[in-house]
């Protein structure tokens, strides 16, 4: 469930660029508010670091670990203390049952050890992070886009349009998010399908992006609709109507700028939620499909190695936790600076 946002955004006049007496523009004020917040700066800096690290995944895999994280390395060997050591280690004690992947070497190769396919977990973590962030980011944009269109259309139009869209939102809302996402995933990952002129293959990242992007639309569209309805009743809108300004102009110049702040506040929190959703779907085998990786798939890979190689699960779990925490911290500050009623926002 998304957090309730009570953002009143910028003052209507400010949002319309008509602030009088203020020396600072609204967006500049937001930017300065963020700069002034150590929490925002630290979380944004660390988030940037995570993004850059994941973007450097191919460089790490090729030049540091020297492995292909998407290829099975069941017969691979690495040198430890000058001695060739198999990545998959056959038990030689007792009854000699079981093969265990190599544990963390804390060196360049297999820094976090290997998974059940003998693949370098550290390299997969970076590639997986890239996919997790890409899916979460893209699905956030999709969700905000559709939620804004539906919410504004419903809230601004009222009447039949509002009735139809609101009921549609309620209908989708009635489905538990994960049940809906899993159901859609099972249908969509089974076979390739066409999206207009584009052929979407079953293993494509577009599938989880679309699914995650769409299942949260009602949760964002509903508050947007409410916000639009509230703005629509405000005095400056009535004044604009009284002056004979056209409806579409009111929408673009007065409603949209005020709603945009609500969308901006939603963005980091929704992205955090989407990271968790993606991981959950991938963990359940209905998100990112092998051999592609995401933090969720690595978690799943590590599930069967919890006892002998816990790092395979701990590493993606830690990455998800930190990223979600940073996004939420940043989102909190962002909400405060966008809220004119809050201490930081003034």
């Amino acid at each position, binding site marked *: 469930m998304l957090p309730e946002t009570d953002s009143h955004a910028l003052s209507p006049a400010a949002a319309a660029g008509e602030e009088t007496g203020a020396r600072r523009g609204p967006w500049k004020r937001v930017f300065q508010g963020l700069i002034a917040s150590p929490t925002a700066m630290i979380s944004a800096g660390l988030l940037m670091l995570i993004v850059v690290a994941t973007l450097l995944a191919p460089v790490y895999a090729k030049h540091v670990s020297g492995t292909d994280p*998407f*290829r*099975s390395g*069941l*017969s691979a060997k690495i040198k430890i203390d000058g001695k060739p050591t198999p990545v*998959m280690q*056959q*038990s030689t*004690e*007792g*009854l*000699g*049952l*079981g*093969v*265990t992947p190599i544990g963390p070497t804390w060196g360049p190769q297999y820094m976090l050890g290997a998974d*059940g*396919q003998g693949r370098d977990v550290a390299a997969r973590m970076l590639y997986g992070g890239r996919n997790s962030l890409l899916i979460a980011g893209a699905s956030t944009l999709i969700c905000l886009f559709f939620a804004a269109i539906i919410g504004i259309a419903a809230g601004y139009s009222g009447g039949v349009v509002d009735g139809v869209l609101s009921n549609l939102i309620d209908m989708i809302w009635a489905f538990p998010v994960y049940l809906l996402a899993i159901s859609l995933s099972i249908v969509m*990952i*089974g076979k390739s399908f066409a999206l207009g002129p584009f052929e979407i*293959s*079953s*293993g494509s990242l577009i599938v989880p992006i679309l699914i995650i992007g769409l299942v949260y639309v009602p949760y964002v569209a509903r508050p947007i609709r409410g916000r639009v309805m509230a703005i629509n009743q405000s005095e400056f809108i009535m004044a604009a109507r009284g002056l004979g300004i056209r409806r579409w102009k009111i929408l673009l110049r007065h409603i949209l700028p005020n709603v945009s702040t609500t969308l901006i506040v939603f963005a980091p929190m929704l992205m955090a939620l989407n990271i968790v959703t993606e991981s959950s779907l991938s963990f359940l*085998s209905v998100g990112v*499909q*092998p*051999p592609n990786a995401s933090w969720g798939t690595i978690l799943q890979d590590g599930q*069967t*190695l*919890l*006892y*002998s*190689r816990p790092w395979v699960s701990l590493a993606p779990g830690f990455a998800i936790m930190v990223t979600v925490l940073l996004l939420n911290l940043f989102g909190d500050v962002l909400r405060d600076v966008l809220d004119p009623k809050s201490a930081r926002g003034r």
Partner: protein
Amino acid sequence: MSESLSLMSRMRGRILCGTAALALGAAMPAFADESHYGGTLKLLGVSSEGTLDPMINYTARYWPLFIWTHDGLMAFKKVNGPESAEVVPDLAEDMPVLSNDGKTYTFKLRQGIKFSNGKDLTVEDVVASFQRIFKVSSPTSGSFYNGIVGADKCLAEAATCTLEGGVIGDAATNTITINLVAPDAEFLYKIAVPHASIVPADTITKDAGNEPIPGTGTYAFESYDPNASLIMVRNPHFQEWSKEAQPKGYVDRIEYTFGGTEEAAVNAILNGQADFMYEPVPTDRLAELSVSHPDQLRVSPLVAWWYAPLNVNIAPFNSLEARQAINYAVDRDALVSIFGGPALATPVCTILPPDMPGHVDRCDYTADPGEFWSAPDMDKALELVEASGTKGQKVTVVTDDSVTSRGVGTYLQTVLTDLGYDATVQSISGDIQFTYIQNTNNNVQISVTQWYQDYPAPSNFLNVLFGCDSFTPGSDSSVNMSGICDKGLDDRMKAAMALGSTDQEAALREWGDIDYDFMKLAPAIPMFTPKDVDLISARVGNYEFTSQFHWLVGTAWVQ
């Protein structure tokens, strides 16, 4: 006394050698056995597995239970080791009399046997049970029992099945005569599996679902809740008539609890809260357990194989060269390591598993062709892919969502990519994967699956998995997943089945050759033959294993 006996029982559990255990058992005085009777055996399973109807359920989870609650005219010997592959008279008094050129079997029914509901067993029950196989559309009615006279009518109109002229009971002489359309060397095996259980004549002629059906075995199902538990208690009317076919079970009660995880089950067994888990021991616990609790692990050979069917009817594996290429390229040792290492699996090159009659050690798809697989031959594989003209084509490997299956699929994806294909892996729920990969409408190119013997005959692998009769396009029940239908080999298989009635040795030689000739066509990638690993509690004694029904729960004791 009890302590020394308990020690002896633990020692016997550790020895785990079929003949040694039997010898010890035979040598033990009668009072020693008596002291082991009683107690409750606690089994754990992550999930239940469907109906409790022995004529319908076709799972490796419940078959080992049905053999203790129900009997057929014949039964596989309930003894440890290879001898368990032999069939012995069960409800039949003796081996049947064969006549009419091997097409007629006459059984004399034992007298004085009662069902668990107290009713006497009669020839009418036997006739009605054979009819019921068809009336409930048993999954093997069309494959195991279609050779009985009148079966074709029963398959066409199940509800009115009479098997007229096929199964005839004579109450006066207490005999049952079964007439076959043609000789069938495997018929006695087929009537020794749970689908040919004898049940009361008045049993409902539809899937009994969760309702227990009375049987004649040493135990009876008391209750079944698929979401919670399955309880078995002693059949109050059971009197041992054949120790080989249906021995009196040791424990008084068997409680099978469903739910939880494999990890939790391992902990419960180690803590003495449970005695056995159906699911395989999690792979990441194996190395630790094999050191810390070796006396509680039992490793037993299976007659089974893990394989990857290659769809010979769609690209790219409609090319013989492409199929041969991937057979050359797959590193069986790598696949063995996914399964848990060489102590748990053995690389294979043939369709017939090593312990299956007719198996011959031969391997062409290896770097050094000979008797056994040695290493992949990537150069040869790449040459074949070039020759096939299939390089660059898209291939999807369909696996189920189990750890091993996904692991094998991911490995195959790597191999296919190395060969120049654009490969992906699709993991789907284990509940539907097996039927999904059978249906030609799903256009599955290559999949990962397993096959365990139903009975110890080569046809159960070769004919069932690659015979023309097993290929039904558009059906979920088309177990010939490769879709291969080679008329020449199909005729040879039918001839080998007939030959088995008269010259078993010659038939087995022919099956070995058929196996080799099938592999020349490479309709599948044989990967490895697995071993069974059971983790049992410290108190379980007299663990006995058969390749047919795995652990014999009835011969184990807990005190």
